[in-house]
């Protein structure tokens, strides 16, 4: 018989845990859910837009009753659990309904705090927590005029905004002198107040409520200083308290919430708890993102996998008031040990403040322009040392200046019909609709449902903003703990470390050793693992063709019509009559429909049928040409300028240096594509400063530049150092490539890698420590011994992977 799992609290955290559990162990339990509210599970955070009239209750249902039926879950809706008999493992509801359990999950959420002033229980005094409250408010707004919202925090302001949009005259009463003081500092709080006033809200600051007046219904509010104002509706939004009454009454250890350990277990090992009712490592949470992380961990333990741990969360907030743009995260007030960087532009209504400690971001608050919120949040969670780019911090990350979305950088200012994702033609409205109607919470959810930012990724920042402003926060899990993919809970770095330490030389070995959750991985982890084992154990690991993307398996680029393109290597961009003749002959012989000069200084032959590839390669090989690896996560091209041989400005022989760089590096597999360039003087005709490794020759030597990137996110290189000899140019290039090969995550280009680890780190390993540089270069050379085999020649004349290019059978 299946074990029984009972959930108390049919809300966001509890049901997320159940969904996660169904994902990983659908058959393990008979599941029963008790919910005090008479509905299925709905998206509580979207109550604000419901109140504002932008959505209906139906829009915000996450799991309707049919869903429970479809998944074989018994739902006791409208039944509040009154006690738990822990000895006999039974749950009893107020109406007497009783259920037995083997495992119990508590997710009772929190209760709004009601200030115990006289009159607090009058009709017309309400909190803002559930559908009932919203119904009462909507009802009141039709009949009454004056609303008072007590509490100028996130919830209070969303309630006030909603009621105002319903036509009420709204006054927000706040005890302190800064609105949302848990999220805003004085300056940004003041800017927020000003713009809300412009929209028609009224504020009473520093006002302490003494009594709510009225006889059979609320009539007004009186303050300590004697002031009285009229009110037909009073909304109390002064905070929430974890709802632990039930847990306490049955003797579970509670402090400010129900105390749980890192596996979300309470002091009773049969009982787990998640959500706002929980206290974990001394913290309680009131935003969805951390609760979802808890839910995931809890599901993992309910499924008896027993590996996940919840280690606490950092959160960020946004206010879901349409048109108001604010963001905050972490400790944005600071103290004696921290420094502030502040940027204020009153004219544009923009304010940003970042708090640093030891050059790491502790917190940030921004108003008016929150484009870089996600970036700061990421730097904060990654604890990135920002000293290398402190000066640029306030100017923001250029990533939203990327190409492909018409120059839009701030999602808040976009109308619903404006295109966000230029690759897949997805508009802002499509994304908002998908988030709210399909119940999406993460960037991955949005990607898979709408395809926005699913291709080139340049609009990722915009999509993140839309997600945050629709849901009021950042929902991605902390990146340093982000698993490689759905097949594992381990992040890239842990996997790479295990491969090295445990001497894992095949994909299978990694999956077994690290308990992969799927039988043979997925299209995302298999190529990564294949690269990791080969890069770590070049002499021992064997390439697994079936774990390569088709381009790397077929050694040519697949085109949208299923044909392939072929790009032979032209060393440093040099070619010869013999090569050109051979190419021309191939074009004639195989009816190649298009011939193009690439931006990488070589020639691309388009529209070749897969079965012709080996023959094409054989002809190119015969003229001395080899694969250009234009299809690979590998060394691509080395672009050169003509240099001092011909150019009147040339200082060094840039062409020969380029040829030599390409000779030493060709064939190497990398985490992502890798491009180099050599310019003969600072005029930089070869565009070396947007390459992964760029050399700019000067009279006295060579400048070495790293981490550049053209394309979607243009990033100019950082100067690594200057060297004096050609030999050093080569040695440094090998060391840099090897460090990248050993440390970067699969599909991470040098630019984001350097931004993640910091240029100082690269300098330390490649420039400052000569022994380490030589060791890195030696490891690169060693790995090249196995990599520098022309894959075309093998396939054209040695019969390697013949099955790849012939059909199994021809019928008819």
């Amino acid at each position: 018989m299946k074990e029984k799992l009972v959930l108390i609290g049919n809300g966001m955290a509890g049901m997320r845990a159940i969904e996660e559990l169904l994902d990983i162990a659908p058959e393990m339990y008979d599941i029963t859910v008790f919910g005090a509210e008479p509905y299925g599970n709905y998206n509580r955070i979207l109550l604000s837009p419901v109140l504002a009239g932008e959505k209906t209750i139906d829009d915000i249902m996450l799991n309707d009753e049919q869903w429970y039926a479809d998944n074989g879950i018994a739902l006791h809706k409208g039944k509040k659990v009154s006690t738990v008999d822990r000895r006999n493992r039974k749950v009893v509801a107020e109406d007497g309904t009783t259920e037995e359990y083997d495992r119990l999950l508590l997710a009772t959420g929190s209760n709004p705090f009601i200030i115990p002033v006289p009159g607090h229980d009058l009709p017309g005094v309400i909190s803002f927590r559930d559908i009932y409250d919203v119904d009462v408010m909507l009802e009141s707004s039709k009949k009454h005029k004056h609303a008072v919202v007590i509490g100028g925090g996130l919830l209070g302001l969303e309630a006030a905004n909603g009621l105002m949009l319903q036509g009420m005259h709204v006054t927000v009463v706040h005890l302190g002198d800064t609105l949302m003081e848990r999220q805003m500092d004085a300056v940004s709080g003041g800017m927020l107040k000003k713009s809300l006033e412009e929209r028609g809200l009224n504020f009473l600051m520093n006002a302490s409520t003494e009594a709510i007046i009225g006889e059979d219904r609320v009539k007004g509010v009186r303050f300590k200083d004697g002031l009285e104002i009229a009110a037909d509706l009073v909304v109390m939004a002064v905070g929430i308290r974890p709802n632990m009454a039930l847990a306490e009454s049955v003797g579970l250890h509670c402090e400010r919430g129900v105390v749980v350990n890192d596996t979300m277990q309470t002091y009773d090992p049969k009982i787990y708890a998640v959500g706002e009712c929980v206290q974990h490592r001394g913290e309680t949470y009131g935003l969805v993102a951390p609760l979802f992380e808890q839910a995931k961990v809890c599901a993992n333990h309910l499924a008896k996998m027993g590996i996940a741990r919840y280690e606490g969360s950092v959160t960020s907030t946004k206010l879901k008031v349409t048109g108001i743009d604010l963001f905050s995260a972490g400790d944005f007030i600071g103290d004696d040990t921290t420094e502030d960087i502040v940027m204020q532009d009153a004219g544009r209504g923009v304010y940003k403040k970042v708090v640093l400690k030891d050059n790491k971001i502790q917190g940030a608050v921004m108003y008016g322009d929150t484009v870089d919120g996600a970036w700061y949040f990421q730097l904060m969670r990654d604890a990135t040392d920002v000293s290398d780019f402190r000066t640029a911090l306030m100017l923001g990350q250029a990533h939203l200046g990327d190409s492909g979305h018409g120059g839009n950088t701030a999602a808040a200012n976009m109308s619903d019909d404006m295109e966000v994702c230029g690759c897949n033609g997805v508009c802002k409205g499509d994304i908002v609709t998908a988030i709210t109607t399909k119940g999406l919470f993460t960037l991955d959810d949005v990607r898979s449902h709408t395809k926005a930012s699913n291709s080139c990724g340049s609009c990722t920042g915009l999509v993140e903003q839309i997600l945050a402003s629709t849901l009021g926060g950042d929902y991605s899990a902390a990146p340093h703990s982000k698993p490689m993919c759905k097949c594992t809970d381990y992040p890239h770095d842990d996997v790479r470390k295990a491969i090295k330490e445990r001497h894992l030389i095949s994909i299978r070995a990694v999956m077994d050793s690290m308990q992969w959750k799927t039988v043979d991985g997925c299209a995302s982890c298999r190529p990564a693992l294949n690269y990791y084992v080969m890069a770590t154990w070049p002499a021992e690991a064997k390439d697994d063709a079936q774990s390569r993307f088709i381009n790397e398996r077929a050694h040519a680029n697949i085109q949208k019509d299923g044909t392939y393109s072929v790009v032979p290597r032209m060393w440093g961009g040099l070619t010869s009559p013999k090569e050109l003749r051979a190419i021309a002959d191939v074009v004639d012989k195989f009816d190649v429909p298009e011939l193009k000069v690439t931006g990488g200084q070589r020639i691309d032959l388009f529209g070749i049928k897969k079965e012709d590839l080996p023959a094409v390669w054989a002809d190119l090989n015969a003229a001395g040409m080899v694969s250009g690896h234009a299809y690979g996560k590998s060394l691509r091209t080395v672009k050169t300028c003509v240099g001092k041989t011909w150019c009147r400005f040339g200082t060094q022989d840039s062409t020969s240096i380029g040829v030599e760089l390409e000779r030493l590096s060709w064939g190497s597999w990398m985490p992502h594509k890798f491009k180099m360039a050599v310019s003969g003087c600072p005029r930089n005709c070869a565009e070396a400063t947007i390459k992964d490794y760029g050399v700019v020759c000067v009279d006295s030597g060579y400048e070495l530049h790293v981490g550049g990137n053209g394309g979607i996110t243009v990033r100019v290189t950082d100067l690594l150092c200057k060297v004096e000899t050609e030999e050093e140019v080569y040695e440094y290039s090998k060391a840099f490539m090897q460090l990248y090969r050993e440390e970067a995550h699969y599909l991470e280009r040098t630019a984001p890698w350097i931004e993640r680890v910091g240029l100082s780190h690269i300098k330390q390993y490649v420039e400052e420590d000569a022994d380490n540089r030589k060791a890195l270069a030696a490891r690169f050379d060693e790995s090249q011994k196995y990599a520098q085999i022309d894959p075309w020649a093998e396939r054209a004349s040695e019969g390697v992977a013949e099955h790849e290019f012939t059909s199994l059978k021809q019928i008819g």
Partner: protein
Amino acid sequence: MSDWIEVGTIDDIPVLGARVVSTADGNIGVFRTADDEIFALRDECPHQKGPLSQGIVHGNQVTCPLHNWNIELDGGEAVAPDEGCTASYPVKIEDGKIFLSLVAAG
């Protein structure tokens, strides 16, 4: 039934790989999973006709090489949230030989 056509042996297809059977009206991808199950699908992704035989096979699914849709090998249905279906063909194995029927199953 008489319309089974022998197309090759299991060993002709790499584990977690695919081969193509070309027919008068288009290609059919024949896939082999880790536990040697064989499936046959029309070699056209329901999205934009990407050649599924060129994708990465994992579990009982293949990931399309063009835009990464996942397609169920058994039945040809796209994995949610993507929607669409590609035709699948009956396959049987006898003595390691693969037989294919061109009467599309759905």
